[in-house]
């Protein structure tokens, strides 16, 4: 049992147990401490000095770095504390372009928020003189140093989750955050995951917007626009409109999409089921032949790009199955005209809503070009709903279109780290044995908090023990790949999601970096839907059974390969 101790926050006694710092304890006392650089999921940095508090006998301390101690008397709102915070804000604003009205982050910006709260109406310091060019080279991320406050959250996110392509350059007031050697993002080993933008408190790192390009086709009667919506969008988009994290609003999202003007609304969960059919089939084949094991999942474009850049010799391990987004678009363009009048391969525009910024990159891959036309992130789609004047709260629920809208629990859990592997095992078991698992819940593969970034489960498929490794973050993926390279890997399947916790915590989701619990609630939302759906096994999805019967014949067939599988190639960069 953890000891309960107490300290005093503005005179009020507050209990604490294992909180890592004062900021978290103070939050329990109902006081929000402002901060730019503290993120509960990243190492503490202590740089912005917004979270300073005054402690009897200890003076000014940053609450994000100070461990709680029994008996401390903390004052969160003294004149001394306020002066520091206000000066920090004024200094940051002096060094900022202050183009709030035209900033993508306007309304969600922490700098804007605190400046308003602290009443910074006048800047007495010398204004920033020279503006630096904005880096728009990446298909996913826009980097504007003129708005950067050097909180280092992006640098830490990139280093602690992924591949450390962002770093600090120069010193003192000349310090900049930039990719290696000041190169454009597109020219370094960035995997487009968007975690940097997800933790950025200002508009320095934002997601490249495709909203206007999407409106151009949606509002143009010459095009038939078809939408697909990824699993984890349904448990996060509602947050923008006041719903709790994890609350499933998919049926309202279908309705909103139609109101905006999309002609058909399908669900990426359907193609998640389809992905499982192809991937499980491939897995079983490899298991039987003993080839290219462990199989690596291929749904996460950031991971695929990472492997292509850093371990091109390991590409044979990747499943050749496209991602659910990658499968559904060609399926729609190929088969929707057969079901819907006026739709042709040429006039269909497929737009997907993804929790992911790397999906914007994925559709530019040579092998996938022309299949998905645009990718919107969850946040972008929320903006579209707002700018279309739709009141999300009063929307009546609607259903997706058929035949690519029905899905199972296996498809929906794709959104959480471990979900792909869990769904794949459920189906692979059936493919091998002809029977279904008695208990389809593979709980060791669940969990999206920081301690669950690498997990394993062993499944007994009628005597054959199959070990599954599930990792999220490329840091963990790298460890697993090294094990494989060194011949130490004892697992047969490796699921990788680049974002910590999986797609529910993707770079394109509504802001959640200030609260670790949000991603857990989103994941719970998905597992809840899995439990509640009448069908939880991908291979039992009647729409899936029908598409094979009517069009694709069987998993791994010639046509399936043409539409649903892809290839990979080395993307090693000379840096």
């Amino acid at each position, binding site marked *: 049992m953890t000891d309960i101790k107490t300290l005093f926050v503005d005179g009020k006694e507050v209990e604490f147990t294992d909180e890592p710092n004062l900021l978290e304890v103070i939050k329990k006392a109902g006081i929000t401490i402002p901060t730019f650089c503290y993120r509960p999921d990243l190492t503490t940095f202590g740089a912005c*000095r917004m979270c300073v508090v005054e402690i009897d006998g200890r003076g000014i301390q940053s609450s994000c770095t100070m461990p709680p101690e029994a008996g401390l008397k903390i004052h969160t709102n003294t004149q001394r504390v306020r002066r520091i915070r206000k000066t920090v804000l004024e*200094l940051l604003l002096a060094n900022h372009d202050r183009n709030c009205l035209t900033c993508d982050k306007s309304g969600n910006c922490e700098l804007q928020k605190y400046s308003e709260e602290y009443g910074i109406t006048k800047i007495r310091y010398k204004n920033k003189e020279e503006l630096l060019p904005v880096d728009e080279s990446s298909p996913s991320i826009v980097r504007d140093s003129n708005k950067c406050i050097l909180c280092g959250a992006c640098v830490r996110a990139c280093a602690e989750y992924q591949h450390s392509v962002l770093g600090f350059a120069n*010193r*003192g*007031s000349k*310090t900049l955050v930039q990719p290696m050697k000041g190169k454009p993002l597109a020219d370094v080993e960035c995997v487009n995951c968007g975690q940097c933008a997800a933790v950025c408190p200002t508009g320095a790192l934002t997601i490249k917007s495709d909203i206007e390009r999407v409106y151009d086709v949606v509002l143009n009667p010459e095009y038939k626009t078809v939408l697909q919506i990824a699993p984890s969008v349904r448990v996060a988009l509602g947050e923008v409109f006041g719903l709790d994290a994890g609350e499933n609003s998919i049926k309202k999202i279908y309705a909103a999409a139609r109101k905006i003007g999309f002609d058909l609304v399908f669900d990426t969960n359907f193609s998640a089921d389809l992905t499982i059919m192809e991937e499980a089939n491939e897995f079983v084949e490899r298991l039987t032949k003993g080839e290219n094991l462990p199989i690596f999942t291929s749904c996460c474009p950031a991971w695929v790009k990472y492997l292509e850049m850093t371990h091109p010799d390991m590409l044979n391990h990747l499943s050749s199955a496209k991602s659910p987004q990658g499968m559904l678009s060609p399926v729609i363009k190929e088969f929707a005209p057969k079901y819907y009048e006026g739709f042709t391969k040429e006039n269909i525009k497929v737009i997907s809503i993804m929790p992911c910024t790397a999906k914007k990159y994925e559709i530019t891959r040579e092998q996938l070009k022309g299949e998905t036309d645009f990718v919107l992130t969850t946040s972008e789609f929320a903006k579209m709903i707002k700018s279309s004047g739709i009141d999300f709260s009063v929307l009546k629920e609607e259903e997706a279109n058929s035949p690519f809208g029905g899905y199972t629990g296996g498809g929906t859990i794709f959104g959480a780290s471990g979900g792909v592997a869990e769904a794949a095992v459920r189906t692979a078991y059936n493919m091998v044995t002809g029977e279904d698992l008695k208990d389809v819940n593979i709980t060791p593969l669940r969990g999206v908090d920081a301690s669950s970034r690498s997990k394993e489960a062993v499944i007994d498929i009628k005597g054959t023990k199959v070990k599954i490794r599930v990792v999220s973050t490329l840091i963990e993926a790298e460890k697993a790949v090294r094990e494989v390279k060194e011949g130490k890997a004892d697992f047969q399947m490796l699921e990788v999601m680049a974002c910590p916790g999986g797609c529910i915590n993707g770079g394109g989701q509504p802001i959640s970096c200030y609260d670790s619990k949000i991603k857990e609630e989103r994941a719970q939302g998905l597992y809840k839907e899995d439990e509640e759906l009448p069908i939880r096994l991908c291979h039992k999805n009647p729409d899936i059974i029908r598409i094979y019967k009517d069009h694709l014949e069987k998993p791994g067939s010639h046509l399936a390969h043409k539409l649903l599988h892809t290839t990979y190639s080395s993307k090693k960069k000379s840096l």
Partner: protein
Amino acid sequence: MITKLKTDIKEEQKLAQEHIKKQGLRVLVCAGTGCVANGSLKVIEKFKELGADVSTLTDYDKMTIVPTGCHGFCEQGVLVIIPEKHVTYVKVKEADVEEIYNSHIKNNKPVERLLYTDPKSGERILKNEEINFYAKQTRTALANCGKINAESIEEAISVRGYEALSNILIENNPESVIEQIEKSGLRGRGGGGFPTGRKWRFTAANRGGKSYVVCNGDEGDPGAFMDRSVMEGDPHKLLEGMAIAAFAVGADEGYIYVRAEYPLAIKRLRKAIKDAEEKNFLGKNIMGSDFSFTIHIKEGAGAFVCGEETALIASIEGERGMPRPKPPFPANKGLFGRPTLINNVETLANVPVIMLKGADWFSKMGTETSKGTKTFALTGEVNNTGLIEVPMGTTLREIIFDIGGGIRGGKKFKAVQIGGPSGGCLTEEHLDLPMDYDSLLKAGAMVGSGGLVVMAEDTCMIEVARFFMNFTKNESCGKCVPCREGTKNMLAILEKIVAGKGEMQDLELLEELAKIVKDGSLCGLGKTAPNPVLSTLKYFKDEYIAHIKDKKCPAGVCTAMKTVMIDENKCKGCTKCARTCPVGAIDGVVKQPHKINQDKCIKCEACLNSCPFKAIGLK
């Protein structure tokens, strides 16, 4: 518990003494960085060349030229000391060597013209200890600097090097070592003045696993070279200090973080480490005991902030040199996440002598709360600049007027900047203030690492504040907002004032910002960066006001405040100035006095230099 050692240090000392004796006449030539720059290597070569023919020596069978570390009196370099003849020669050039050799070494007749001249009396002084610069000093950390060949471990042993280490290994009681250091009252010499013994105790509390001892030799203050002198002049003392510290806290690995700009220090440290390892004074089972300790050298790239202990740790780890928040303190979680003791060079150099002569001996020197001696790098407008070591509590007056020989050119003393860019300025009213940690802190300055820049009446204090702010602004690591943005904006305000564009509200803003940067910054660099501003604002506010209200620089330094004027009486109307002026600000008719249009003048002073009659001046 007494441990029997394989190494008998007394025996080693006997051998070392014999080694010294064999050298015959010892001629000490300073080979510190300053004297090397002044040509001491050539002086050494010349002596060697002359001494090669021993037959010319009358009283000695042999002469040995000993290249030593810094003597401190860099102003007067190259310094040559012949201890047996009780003589110190100053400003020796290669061309002077022959005369010294022929006259003094061979015929015992001192070379008068190369002796030090007292600036007050004008007398020539023969003996080192009679030169005021040295007479008033008490050298403990620097005791051997300038007296031994820094590259010879035998010479270090001859002056009791490694004796303290041997003693504590025999006694084998780490606790008693910590007690001695605590009792001595030694405090950190790097700037903060934290009690050294307490720091050791905190680190020793985590004894058991892997621990480190780190020596902070990242001396970054402009003009400071105390640590460099120890590393160059007596590297073994530092190594011994580190080994004792490691023994006390239970560490087995150490790092010396030294700036790459100190190549000579690095070279000598490397040699010293190698020699000490060969003698088993470092390495595995030192002197045959159970204690093992190895030392690595880490060359820093010269960032000022890496002198901050957590930034230094980050730098050794290969990370960007940025400070980390404390807690956790290095004593609990330092280098590579392990308990780490970090002490400055001078602090560690004091350790062997404390262990040898006892805590009581050490604590007799100094003041109530600041014990022992402190080295200072004395620079600026004093007659004798150089490296000095005095007991804590010595007054500024003694340092500037006795050791320093007073202000150059008979000018009036104005202020002294102490503690470098992190320190503050002290004025005439502080001349009798005892120099110790607490008195200085109270006066708004700090001992810092020991830089002392003396300023005379013709120094502009706003310019001084601007100079140091420019330094800290450039050296700020850029991590925390108050320091990164605050130093930049304090500098901008100071620049505005010295450019003659200051407004009275700038003063308020400057003071407000300075206080907040001090209060809100993450590390020591930011917390002390405003000190030059705050102390000049405190003691020289009228000078700021003169710059702002009267647009005048009382010291006559700031160009922007000056008016370029043509003296009508001296001007012959030669038109040269009008032709030289790049902005056409000078009008006049030939052979008639010319005039400067002040609205057009950009104060480039080109006319000043062009005038053949010296008719143009600044006012």
